[in-house]
């Protein structure tokens, strides 16, 4: 599955996916309910239909540690997995796929900043100038939920995130009128 050198793709859409729906639909890891339900940034496993597997993309442990160790006190980061169910999918593509994330709108700017920092940190470690990345982020807000699907180079992330932030903010403002 070659996902490299793909066209820069930005999709921002409405979604009915919420924290509650995810938690109800999937098997909640035993003993983790309280921690996961109180999260405002939650990493989700991806469903790989081709392999009939639910797994996290390679690098998720490092990504989870990176955002969890963020000094920001407003973030409560969790991952929808326990030790028994957690597994990684290794695609051996040079592109980077991040685990799907759902965040509450109050911490969206922080979450986007953490993703950006993680990617630039990764580029630095790899001694690369750019790499293709796949990001899928859902922002939950009581006024409506938005989803960003981005596939393209890291260098295009900032513009995509700025646009997503703008759409989420205008959605909240519109509903306030």
């Amino acid at each position, binding site marked *: 599955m070659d996902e490299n050198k793909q066209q820069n793709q930005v999709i921002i859409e409405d979604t009915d996916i919420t924290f509650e729906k995810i938690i109800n639909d999937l098997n909640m890891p035993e003993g983790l309910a309280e921690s996961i339900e109180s999260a405002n940034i939650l990493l989700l496993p991806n469903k790989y239909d081709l*392999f009939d597997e639910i797994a996290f993309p390679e690098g998720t*442990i490092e990504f989870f540690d990176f955002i969890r160790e963020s000094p920001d006190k407003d973030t409560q980061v969790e991952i929808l997995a326990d030790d028994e169910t957690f597994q990684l999918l290794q695609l051996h593509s040079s592109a980077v796929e991040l685990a799907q994330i759902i965040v509450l709108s109050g911490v969206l700017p922080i979450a986007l900043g953490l993703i950006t920092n993680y990617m630039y940190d990764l580029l630095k470690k790899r001694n690369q100038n750019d790499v293709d990345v796949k990001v899928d982020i859902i922002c939950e807000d009581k006024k409506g939920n938005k989803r960003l699907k981005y596939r393209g180079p890291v260098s295009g992330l900032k513009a995509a995130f700025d646009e997503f932030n703008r759409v989420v903010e205008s959605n909240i403002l519109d509903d306030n009128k």
Partner: protein
Amino acid sequence: MTINEMEHYLSECRIKLDRSVNDEIIRALKDAVTRSNEEEANYLWCLSTIFHIQEAYVEAFQNLQSKNYEEAWNLLDKTDCMLRTLYSQSEVNTSIFANKYHLEFIATMIPRYQKVFPYKYFLSRGAVIKEMHCSICGQSIKIRNRCKHKIGHLYMGRLCQRIITKMDIKEVSLVTNPTDKYAIAHIKGQEYNYSALELLMSKVASPYTEWDVVIST
């Protein structure tokens, strides 16, 4: 051999590396571990890695000269992997290494050589990793219960890696830009055309000769 002498040895552009120098580095590393001097042990790990980078790069060039193209390709990939590993650890400041040990030059030249190879398609596996262990302490790596060792970091002169002990291979794909460049696709009954590499190698005298290539359509 002192650390200064090791540094001096690695700072010169050599077309053949003396493995006894790396033996000296490893001996000094073990000595640093015995003295619990982690900073020195980690630094010596870097020097040993630099030795292997230079050695693999020079061997790749020699294999190109000998027309062992696939071996040369694999050695260039190995060199690239070791360079990334060296730069990804954060215990030792590698910024001074780039020019002092010609690593920037090597990093620049690897993709230039790779560009001249005829390999365009590779095999890439998709696999689900079910079980892995820490290379430092051997503990099983779980998402919630893990040792404190972090992948890519140095601990007393040893690099933390993941040892995969259980995985399911799900598929093999044909790709053009793989992580593992060694998995070259071969078509039965057909040989790759290495004429561009032959022409290049007739012009380049040393692995430390700089050149560039422009591919026009």
